[in-house]
């Protein structure tokens, strides 16, 4: 009985501590002004093109389902452009001026963002792997490569520039999110420049594309 009481108190303490950490991360997020460009409460708000264009940065209400924690933590400390072009702009190059976080703020905000998840993303559906069918769809059958950069032959960067770069996307994106995004785009981005492929690609095709993109990782150097 005594052990049970101790265990219960311990569990309550842990939950309270993690809740406090999330709240602290949320406070840092607001204090640093992140909320001026990114909204963190779902569901998606955009209904029109104007709604989308009014945003200064991507929505983050499902960041914990979309990103990988290590990548996110590294990126917050040293942000590198993900999009070749400025967000919501076709004429201006990405100015690479995203604010950096430092010290304890990095882990606090990463923890906060990783706590923002969507039930629409089901875990364990997508295993990254070399996928010729996914490649065929990405490069030949559908226009994915027309808007997204990726590492082509011999690592040469290929692809278009209007969408987010997918070079090394396997380090950045949760494989299961890629599939969920293809299958249920309106849950995440009701108004977006990317075509809706629901009804054009089968679930199996989408799975192949998700596996292929999730496998975009830096090549290991030969010794």
């Amino acid at each position, binding site marked *: 009985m005594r052990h049970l009481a101790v265990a219960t108190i311990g569990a309550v303490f842990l939950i309270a501590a993690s809740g406090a950490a999330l709240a602290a991360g949320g406070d840092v997020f607001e204090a640093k002004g992140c909320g001026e460009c990114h909204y963190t409460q779902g569901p998606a708000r955009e209904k029109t093109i104007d709604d989308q264009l009014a945003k200064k940065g991507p929505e983050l209400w499902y960041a914990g389902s979309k990103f990988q924690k290590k990548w996110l933590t590294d990126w917050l400390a040293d942000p590198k452009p993900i999009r070749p072009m400025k967000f919501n702009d*076709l004429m201006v190059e990405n100015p690479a001026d995203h604010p950096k976080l430092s010290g304890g703020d990095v882990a606090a905000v990463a923890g906060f963002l990783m706590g923002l998840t969507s039930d629409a993303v089901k875990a364990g559906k997508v295993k990254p792997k070399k996928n010729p069918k996914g490649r065929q769809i990405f490069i*030949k059958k*559908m226009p994915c490569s027309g808007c997204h950069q990726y590492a082509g032959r011999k690592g040469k960067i290929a692809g278009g520039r209007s969408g987010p770069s997918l070079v090394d996307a396997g380090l950045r994106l949760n494989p299961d999110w890629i599939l969920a995004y293809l299958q249920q785009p309106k849950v995440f981005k009701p108004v977006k420049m990317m075509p809706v492929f629901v009804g054009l690609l089968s679930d199996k095709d989408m799975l192949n594309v998700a596996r292929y993109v999730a496998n975009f990782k830096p090549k290991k150097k030969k010794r």
Partner: protein
Amino acid sequence: MQKISLGKTWAIAAVVAMGAQFAAVPATASETAAVFKFYCAQCHGLTGKGDGPNVTKDFPVSPRNFANAKEMDKLSDADLKNVIMDGGPSVSKSPMMPPWGKTLTVEQVDGLVKHLRGICKCKGKQG
């Protein structure tokens, strides 16, 4: 001949009126301009000359220059609508032209066809 009661007549009239209320409204020119800028300009450029930011020297095809009246005149409005809805392969062109049929409404696509005719200042193949 089967008689229709007054009550049924009213019910049918109400349904027809509701249908009319929700009938698709054509996209205005300014709405269409926004649609073009948001979706099409990625490859076709803001002025439709085929020079959007995706068109690097490695881009596998040259997106259509809508200002080229000679080329645009070879296509009917139905051809333009088809290629917007179903993508390049539907007219034996490149898959780099996406199928927008699941993204745009028919009214938006009709608006885009008019918009393209405004850029080329041409009527296209008739009949």
